[in-house]
């Protein structure tokens, strides 16, 4: 075997051996033990990394549950069967949590016809709000450009012409992404089974509201007076319902002259949310 054959073979084989062993040792020395339970749980979680549980994504939450004992019921997006399995893996009983959903507290008409200026910019609420509080004449009203719709990782919200977006209770997991996305802070998380909701966030009183919006609350206070359980108090020109006392009788929705209060049993809000 002439030398010009031996040298290359020896060189490369030598490198191969050294590097092969080096990598094998490195894989052993630097092996990072991953707790099998973390992987098991991570597979059960929805994997949308929505952050509703307060941890950085599902893998962060899984690690927190296994290593730091975080409560398994924080995940808003998980379906009941998976949640039970996570409990089993952790060996912890998982108490049921009342399903929540996002609600947009505005039912006013949102259309370019009654905008106070011609908005030609980026179709996004967060951008539109920079221009004199957005094109909607009502300073507190929804801009209807779907920042919340874009923010929702579960596609639970859909835009509608002339009305604020509609929320699909099935898909909505109350992860709260839309709450922070809405520049007018109209969205709050409420139990899905809540009947009576005040569908307006305007802090103005009387005439200014009446001129701009057919269903805006004019802070007349009738609902507070008429409520049999005195569950409603007027704060900053808006009725605030104490849901502990409220029996969802619906009188407030009936008496409200502007139909600003939604009663899901009888769908009183004029805009038919």
């Amino acid at each position, binding site marked *: 075997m002439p030398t*010009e054959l031996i*040298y*290359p073979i020896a*060189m*490369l084989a030598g*490198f*191969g051996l050294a*590097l092969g062993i*080096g*990598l094998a040792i*490195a*894989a052993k*020395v*630097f*092996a*990072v033990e991953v707790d099998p339970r973390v992987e098991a749980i991570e597979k059960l979680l929805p994997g949308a990394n929505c952050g509703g549980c307060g941890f950085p994504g599902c893998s962060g939450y899984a690690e927190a549950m296994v290593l730091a004992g975080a409560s398994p019921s924080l995940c808003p997006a998980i379906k009941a069967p998976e949640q039970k399995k996570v409990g089993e893996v952790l060996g912890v009983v998982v108490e049921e949590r009342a399903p929540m959903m996002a609600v947009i507290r505005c039912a006013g008409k949102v259309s370019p016809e009654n905008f106070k200026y011609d908005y030609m910019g*980026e179709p996004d609420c967060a951008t539109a709000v920079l221009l004199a509080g957005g094109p909607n004449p009502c300073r507190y009203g929804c801009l209807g450009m779907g920042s919340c719709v874009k923010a929702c990782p579960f596609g639970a919200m859909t835009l509608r012409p002339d009305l604020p977006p509609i929320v699909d209770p099935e898909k909505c997991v109350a992860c709260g992404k839309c709450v922070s996305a809405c520049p007018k802070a109209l969205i709050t998380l409420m139990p899905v089974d809540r009947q009576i909701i005040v569908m307006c966030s305007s802090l103005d009183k009387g005439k200014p509201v009446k001129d701009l919006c057919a269903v805006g609350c004019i802070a007349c206070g009738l609902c507070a007076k008429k409520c049999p359980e005195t569950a409603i108090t007027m704060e900053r020109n808006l009725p605030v319902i104490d849901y502990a006392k409220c029996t969802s009788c619906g009188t407030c929705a009936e008496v409200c002259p502007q139909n600003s209060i939604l009663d899901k049993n009888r769908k009183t809000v004029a805009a038919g949310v």
Partner: protein
Amino acid sequence: MMNDIVVLVIGAIFVNNFVLARFLGICPFVGVSKRVGDAVGMGMAVIFVMILASVASWLTFFYVLTPLKIEYMTTIAFILIIASLVQFVENVIKKMAPALYKSLGIYLPLITTNCAVLGIALLNVQNGYTLTQTVLHAVGASVGFTMALVLLAGIRERLERADIPPSLKGAPITFITSGLLAIAFMGFIGMV
């Protein structure tokens, strides 16, 4: 000596920028430049690996391949070293700095198949650089690569908002943007 350093580093960053003039490392350049955060992460990984790989390959060439007169084995020896080096670095980072690995880790295997790393190893040897020149060239080239990557990432983030003809969306517009970027970089030619 000082002038030589400046010429080499500035030349590698601006004049024959690794991506925009020499076409090395386009796969990650297109793949990872969606967000500036990723681009910087990838850039750091590339700088780290490029310098390490350049030094390792230079030593191998001048102390193993040339004495044994087997220069034709350069490519295979270099790529074997680079692949093992990257895998080794990946293991080390995964153990030593899990947080860093989380942000940087996914890019490391990408670097093994990165033409820029092998490209610079071969160029250092072809240009007959000394060890210091090799390190300088590696620094310049990787910084140039990162700069081009971050520049493109910045532009691409704005492109998300621009209205582009549907058939040009995605990769085509990225190449066209890189083309314009390359034209801009042509302004530096002849500077060094």
